[in-house]
């Protein structure tokens, strides 16, 4: 046997043919053919594309290659696996017959050309079903790309090919629409049966779909990708904010109390416990400020007060007007408020901080104020993430507003507010 990287290769017999895992555009059929015939893989690919316009012959041959030649690392070709599975056979037959029926119905109604071009579509569909159900992971991706290419929405295909396919698809779609509309409008068809009219209408719809489907598909896919990306970015920011709040804070505390081994041990143990809870108890509250059992805003702020007074030796006066059951936004608000209090403990030099929370219809506001040294908000170093990320950024990411009022010598007030819908 040859090494896995030996592509292209000289092959002794058909049974030894394998579609390579790398160097493939779709399913790796072209490299196999090219290696066997001793020609360039690109030439083979061009040949397949050209043949595709001869009644879909290229597509048929390509799919046949896909089904008959096993992928690298596989013992049997997809076709054999597919034939052994009754459900695949049934599914394939069903899909093929459905498409075939549509084509025949079109022929019977005297709609020429475009519908006849669906014959290779029937083959392609049947073969793709087989591939889909029995291919390995690599081939599944390829099948997806192949299907996308057939609908001209594929991004992997070379530009020129995509242009040609797109043009063909547009022509076919517009022709369908034109035929459908003319069938509907032509006076000589007025006495036709309802079925004719329905078929014409279906034709119009199919035509429009054919023209627009790739665009819909692409649009949906882009939206999904964007949403995923945004969710990932948000997750990363949350994670960074959490690590800043918990681990970095603890490390700073440990540095400060390096001379007291017991204190260091206590801090490290507490941090370890907390991090464990956060990492492995995903169901529980993720905010370090709110103790796991805090259910309402007042309880969570009470927990923040106790925690800050214990860890930072800062007196916190917490006043809550009204109360609200914590939701995601309010948890973020509490975490941000907690971080603002910790900031005051670390930087302001004040021995006391006031926390005021008020629940109003639709909004919850929290004010964190100290009468300490204050600072110039415009001159905060960029790597001091506490204020910009953990307080302001976190609140805004959850749809709230946040502002800092401070000046050197004038103390600091952080004002946070979060939209809130009372669950009643």
């Amino acid at each position, binding site marked *: 046997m040859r090494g896995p990287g030996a592509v292209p290769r000289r092959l002794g017999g058909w049974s030894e043919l394998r579609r390579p895992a790398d160097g493939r555009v779709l399913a790796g059929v072209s490299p196999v053919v090219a290696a066997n015939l001793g020609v360039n893989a690109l030439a083979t690919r061009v040949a397949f594309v050209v043949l595709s316009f001869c009644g879909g012959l290229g597509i048929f041959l390509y799919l046949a290659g896909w089904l008959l030649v096993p992928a690298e690392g596989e013992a049997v070709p997809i076709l054999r696996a597919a034939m052994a599975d009754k459900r695949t056979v049934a599914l394939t037959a069903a899909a093929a017959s459905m498409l075939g029926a549509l084509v025949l119905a079109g022929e019977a109604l005297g709609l020429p050309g475009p519908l006849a071009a669906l014959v290779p579509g029937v083959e392609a569909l049947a073969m793709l079903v087989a591939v889909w159900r029995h291919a390995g992971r690599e081939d599944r991706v390829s099948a997806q790309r192949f299907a996308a290419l057939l609908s001209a929405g594929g991004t992997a295909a070379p530009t020129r090919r995509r242009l040609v396919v797109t043009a063909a698809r547009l022509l076919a779609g517009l022709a369908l629409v034109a035929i459908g509309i003319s069938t509907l409008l032509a006076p000589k068809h007025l006495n036709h049966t309802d079925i004719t009219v329905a078929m014409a209408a279906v034709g119009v719809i199919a035509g429009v779909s054919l023209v627009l489907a790739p665009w819909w598909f692409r649009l949906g896919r882009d939206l999904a990708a964007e949403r995923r990306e945004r969710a990932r970015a948000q997750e990363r920011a949350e994670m960074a904010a959490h690590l800043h709040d918990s681990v970095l804070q603890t490390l700073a505390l440990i540095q400060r109390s390096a001379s007291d081994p017991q204190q260091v041990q206590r801090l490290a143990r507490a941090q370890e416990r907390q991090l464990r809870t956060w990492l492995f108890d995903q169901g529980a509250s993720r905010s370090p400020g709110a103790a796991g059992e805090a259910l309402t805003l007042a309880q969570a702020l*009470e927990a923040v007060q106790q925690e800050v007074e214990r860890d930072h030796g800062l007196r916190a*006066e917490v006043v809550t007007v009204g109360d609200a059951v914590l939701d995601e936004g309010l948890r973020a608000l509490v975490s941000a408020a907690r971080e603002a209090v910790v900031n005051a403990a670390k930087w302001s030099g004040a021995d006391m901080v006031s926390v005021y929370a008020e629940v109003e219809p639709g909004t919850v506001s929290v004010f964190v*104020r100290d009468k300490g040294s204050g600072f110039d908000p415009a001159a905060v170093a960029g790597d001091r993430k506490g204020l910009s990320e953990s307080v302001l950024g976190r609140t805004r990411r959850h749809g709230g507003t946040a502002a800092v009022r401070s000046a050197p010598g004038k103390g600091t007030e952080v004002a946070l507010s979060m939209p809130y819908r009372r669950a009643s």
Partner: protein
Amino acid sequence: MSGHGTSPTSGAPLKVFLVDDHQLFRAGVRHELSATGLVEIVGEAGDVAGAVAQVPQLAPDVVLVDVHMPDGGGPEVVRQVLATCPASRFLALSVSDAAEDVIEAIRAGARGYVTKTISTEELLEALRMVADGDAVFSPRLAGFVLDAFAAAPGPATVHLDPELDQLTGREREVLRLIARGYAYKEVARELYISVKTVETHVSAVLRKLQLSNRHQLTRWAMERRLVPPGNY
């Protein structure tokens, strides 16, 4: 303090009477306040009976009274002394912050309430203000009042006096800033009004708090019983 130069008592030391069942706490307060030279502790009592017996004779400027004591606590002291000596002025001092007790002390007639964690300077300022007849609202008391008066009056309260049972917009603004930790001076600057005006608003709120007929006030305070800090 610049906003308070008009105080009639600013010359002589303030005469203060201490009521607290913790002897150690009384000693601490006595020491701290005496050290300022601005306060004279004219007497102290460890229970309700002792306070009720001594205060009318000593006629202090302010009675500093702990909210939590056996036999009815601070509110009982305030009620009984006011019955015989209506000119007395009381500042309530509390450690637990239970709304129920604080509101009760205010309703009994105390002119203000501060927490035991208050700094000596702040306590001195609060005593002066009460001696002058002003009201002293800590952030927490401001929060309590906002909370208690925020609840929309239900059908059962229509017969009540709207003058007494609602806060004006300005009073609300003042209370909010106090709850956020602003001193009266800072409230005045924030709202572009004089300190005297702030004091007027706060006194008006105190009066409403003491005279309001809202029976829900008590019920609200009961429901709002907070978990005392320290049992972490």
